[in-house]
Each structure stands twice: as structure tokens, then as C-alpha cells.
């Protein structure tokens, strides 16, 4: 994707990543050639519906997919130039939670219910050799204050069940940020939260990104959430990235028919319509995808070529009559004009 301020090398570069899962009926392709780059300081949104492969992409970066049944069939995941897929397990463990932090949708399942909040943050610091004992406990308190969970003295002694959903997600943030990571991967971090709490967490992610100077990979099904936080957006469908562009550009002029359909089908505040535009049908499950574009069965713009040949992600210009938009790419044989 577009380098920010001309920065040279991407922090994270996913190159032609293909992942499949073994099932009762044979191997099924889940990711089919995903390319995605994140430059230092950038916030990139990965958007898609259930089954698009967005979480599998995130889990692949962290190497948290169980194998078997999952298998990386091809591709590389370069983090500061180093292929994570080639790292020994011990080195990868050191990377996780240190250089790459992660938060998930449901903080209750990622926090250990039997330990205090303070213990769990201090553990993350100790595990990566940042601080131990009293020093770790003090840093845990400082982290809690930074993510807006105060007063730290009381919160450190509390257990996850004593906190609300929003506070638990803030504690997850404190753990993810404990080692001052270069990259934060946030997988549907606000999906389980109420809308006023979601707004708080999105603001927090934006503020901490600036404070810690880290890059963010935000995975979500919600285009509105992406618009709040991200500089760049990649849209996934059926195991491939079908469009990517700057957030402003994508919302102003989507070129892939799926992106446009997704934007149009959500009801928008203040714009009542009698009938909502819809995308007919549903996402083809893995294993039921044809050789061509994954969206062909639901697409109103499909050509004969679309069913036979997968379109590559390629630069697309602006609308007719406007100047070309650099960095805007779509995988479509017949893009929206």
C-alpha cells in the first residue's frame, strides 16, 4: 500500500499468503494470495464479512492458527524484513506480545479469570524481560492509567469479572501495549461493546497509536469503525483482498462492486429509504469457490471472464474525468465506473 510520508520499508508485508484447512472432504483454501503492507505509524483497516478470511489473516501473522488443520501453502509474512513464517517457535513467542501486540473481540475469553488484572499485566512484562516484581507492578499501574482504567491502586487488585466489558477491553490494551509494540493487531475490538463504549475504545486506540507511535492493523466487519480509525482500508472477500485505498478515497469512490454493495446495504443515519439496496445471495463457503472471482455469483456487473479467471489486484484510476488515484487498487475485471 501507499507509504506514509514516503517511508521506505513496510513494517509488515504479507506477500501472496495462501492458507488452507484440512476438512473431512479434503483440503479447503481459505486465503488465496493475500497481499497487504503496513508502513510504520500507519493504521490499516481490514474489512470483511464472516468467512472473508480477515481473522485468519490476522491469526496467520501471529502464527496462532492450529496446524493441523491449517497449513500455509505459500507466501511470506515479513515483519521488519524478517519472515515470521520461517522463525523458530521460541523466537516467534518472543515476538508475540513484545513487538506485536494483539487484542481480540471478547476480552473475557482472553483474560484469565483466576488472576488479578495487575498480575496479568505484570506477567506480560516479566515474560518479555521488561520488568519484574515491584517494578513490574508499578509499570502495570502506570499502563492502566494510560488506558483510562483508574484508580490503578484499586484496579490492579481486581479480577476480570469485576470489570465491565469496556474496562476489560482497556485492560487487554494495557497488556498488548506493555512492551511498547511496533504493531497492534486489533481483531473486532469493539464488536461486543455498546456504541457509546465503542466510541471510547476507538478514541483510545487512535490516541495510543499517536502516543506509542505504533502501527495498527484493525480487523472489523464495520465500515464505520474503519472510517473512524484508519488511514488505509483493505476490503476482503472470499479469501482475497478485492480492493484497497486510502480511507477517504475508498468511501468517496469505491470501485469494486462488492465494496459498493457493502456501503450501500447498511442503513445510514438521516437517510431513510423505503427499500435498502442489497447484495443478493451469500458468501460462498470455502470449498465452494470457483476458479474465477469469488464475488461472481452475487455481482450485477459480472462478465463471462469473471467466472473463469480470478482478477488480480491492480491499480484503478479515479472516476471518468478525474485524475488517477495513486494507490487505489481493485481486483475486478469490470470495476464500478
Amino acid at each position, binding site marked *: 500500500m501507499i507509504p506514509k510520508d514516503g517511508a521506505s520499508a513496510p513494517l509488515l508485508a504479507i506477500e501472496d499468503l495462501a492458507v488452507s484447512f484440512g476438512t473431512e472432504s479434503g483440503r479447503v483454501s481459505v486465503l488465496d494470495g493475500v497481499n497487504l503492507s503496513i508502513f510504520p505509524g500507519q493504521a490499516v483497516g481490514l474489512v470483511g464479512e464472516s468467512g472473508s478470511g480477515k481473522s485468519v489473516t490476522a491469526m496467520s501473522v501471529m502464527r496462532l492458527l492450529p496446524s493441523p488443520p491449517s497449513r500455509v501453502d505459500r507466501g511470506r509474512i515479513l515483519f521488519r524484513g524478517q519472515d515470521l513464517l520461517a522463525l523458530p517457535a521460541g523466537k516467534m513467542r518472543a515476538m508475540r506480545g513484545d513487538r506485536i501486540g494483539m487484542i481480540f473481540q471478547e476480552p473475557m475469553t482472553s483474560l484469565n479469570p483466576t488472576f488479578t488484572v495487575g498480575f496479568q499485566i505484570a506477567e506480560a512484562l516479566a515474560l518479555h524481560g521488561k520488568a519484574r516484581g515491584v517494578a513490574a507492578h508499578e509499570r502495570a499501574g502506570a499502563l492502566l492509567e494510560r488506558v483510562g482504567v483508574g484508580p490503578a491502586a484499586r484496579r490492579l487488585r481486581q479480577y476480570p469479572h469485576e470489570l465491565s466489558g469496556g474496562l476489560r477491553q482497556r485492560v487487554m490494551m494495557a497488556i498488548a501495549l506493555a512492551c511498547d509494540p511496533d504493531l497492534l493487531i486489533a481483531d473486532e475490538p469493539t464488536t461486543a461493546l455498546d456504541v457509546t463504549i465503542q466510541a471510547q475504545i476507538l478514541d483510545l486506540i487512535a490516541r495510543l497509536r499517536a502516543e506509542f507511535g505504533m502501527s495498527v492493523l484493525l480487523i472489523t466487519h464495520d*465500515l464505520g469503525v474503519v472510517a473512524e480509525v484508519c488511514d488505509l482500508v483493505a476490503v476482503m472477500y472470499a479469501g482475497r483482498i478485492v480492493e484497497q485505498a486510502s480511507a477517504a478515497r475508498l468511501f468517496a469512490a469505491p470501485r469494486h462492486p462488492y465494496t459498493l454493495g457493502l*456501503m450501500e446495504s447498511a*442503513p445510514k443515519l*438521516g437517510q431513510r429509504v423505503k427499500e435498502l439496496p442489497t447484495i443478493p445471495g451469500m458468501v460462498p463457503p470455502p470449498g465452494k469457490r470457483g476458479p474465477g472471482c469469488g464475488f461472481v455469483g452475487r455481482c450485477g456487473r459480472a462478465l463471462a471472464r469473471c467466472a473463469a479467471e480470478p482478477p488480480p489486484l491492480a491499480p484503478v484510476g479515479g472516476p471518468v474525468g478525474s485524475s488517477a488515484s495513486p494507490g487505489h487498487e481493485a481486483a475486478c475485471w469490470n470495476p464500478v465506473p
Partner: protein
Amino acid sequence: MTALLAVRGLKTHFRARDGAGIVRAVDGVSFTLDAGSTLGIVGESGCGKSTLARSVLRLIEPSSGEITFDGEDVRALSARRLAALRRHMQIVFQDPYASLDPRQSIGAILAEPLEIHRIGDRASRHARVLEVLGLVGLDAEAVGKFPHEFSGGQRQRIGIARAIALSPRLIVADEPVSALDVSIQSQILNLLVSLRERLGLSYLFISHDLAVVEHISDWVLVMYLGRIVESGPVEAIYARPSHPYTQALIAAIPQSGPRRQAAQSVLAGDVPDPEHPPAGCPFHPRCPKAMPRCTSEFPDERAASSPAHRVSCHLY
């Protein structure tokens, strides 16, 4: 227009988990729903919207208040008469995975309400099953299949087919599209709107999603901690939100257009514990416009932008 459903001063209280206190899940709610229209109830988790919906159907017994459905006093009905009345009041749930029996075929699931209410014979029930499948946009071959063979959106269509099988007049829809992907959500919303028109249905539509509620509703109630803080015609609520809570809810929705301006529109704090609600207006600890009297005195309902647009707030 005559009211199909009228609710007056409805309260549903529960014993708190510790056994000592009382949770006022629904605490004095009044509204009317006209035949053929949709009343949207919006609020965050714990505001009591689902308890309210279930209390109206007496799936949860209310503690006090009046419920009148089509002229009948619902709270005074015997269990037997209530069962008969439920033919006209059906419910659609959020989770189409949990609300369909995985061991029953779709044909059996859809025929069950007809059997319970002893409607028709085997042949006419089968014909009705095929008819409602068609109404919700599913093929007749679905009859012999089981819930696991369908996607989430299709299962929600089955849930809707089951609800309309008895030709009800009212459908309570409790977060019916919240578990669905955006592209499927719009299909189901369009289906609900078209069924309302074709079958003359009325909806009590519960959702946390303000955009969805705006799309489908004629009238909107905003709930906070068991109370209605604002109500009125949908246009008034969204064009001139009056309660600071409604304003904050609308401001908090992430928009895929231009970015929300400043961080000051973000509401601080959490929804209070319903077992220990704040005194006075329950919203005052989070309210950017709270005044001293808000901490002690619950505001009466008063007119906002029009006589029909009501708000419970000391600012007005």
C-alpha cells in the same frame, strides 16, 4: 387510528443476584402501538429493552402496570386465554442458531405453531408451511431440511416464517438482524418491511442499532436503565434529538462518511449497575449537561420539539 397495543406504567422488577436488592429492569414504561406501524425501542445493554418486549408478551410476568392488546387486558388473562391470544402476538429472536430446534426439520418447525393452536388438518397445515416459506423467500424444498443446512440469514427467514405462520397482528422482533452480516441484514430488513405491508403486521422492534431503528420505525422509544428518556415520531427523534443521552448515542455511531469531529462527543463512563442505579435522573453521572437537581429528582416527561415528541429531562 386505533391502538393495537397500549402499555401503561409497566414495571418488571427482579430480585437482585445477592438476594437483597431489587433490579428495576422496566420501571414505569408507557406507550401505544398503532395497527400497521412499527415502534422501535433503542438503548444499550442493560437498559431493559428486551425485558420490556418479553413483559409485553408475558413471557416474563410484569410486576405492575397495564397491557391492552386489541382491547383485551393481557395481564388479567388466564394462562389458557393468554395461550390463545399468543396466536396474534409472535416473537422473532436475535439468534437464529439458538431459537430453532436442530433435530426438527423445517417443515416440522413451521407446522408446530399450527398444531399447537389446532389449526387445520395435516394437508392444510402443509399447504400453509409452503405458503409461509414462499412469503419469506425460501424454496419449498426447505421443508425436508434441518436448521444446520442453512446460513444465518436463511435461518432468520425460517424464524420469521414461524412467527407469521399463525397470521399474527403483532410481531415482537428482538434484535432480529444484530447477528447478521451487513449484506444479509439489509435483505432481512427489506423482508420485514414488505411483510408488514403485505400482511398488515405491526412490529415492536428492539435494537441497539440506531440506524436500523431509524430505517424501520415510525415511532421510537429511547430507553436508559428501565425508563423511557425520550419518545416520538422517528423524524423528530433523529432530526431533533433532545435528551443528552439520545444526542450522545447518535454522536457515537461510527460513520463511514466524514469523521466524527472531536473527542468531546464521546460519552464518558459505563452504563451504571442496574442493581444500584444512581438517584435522580439515572443518566446524570454521564451527562455533560447535568445540573444539581438532576442528582435528586427524576425528571417528569414533557414536550420536546412538538407535543408528540416527549423527553424526560430537566433541561426542558
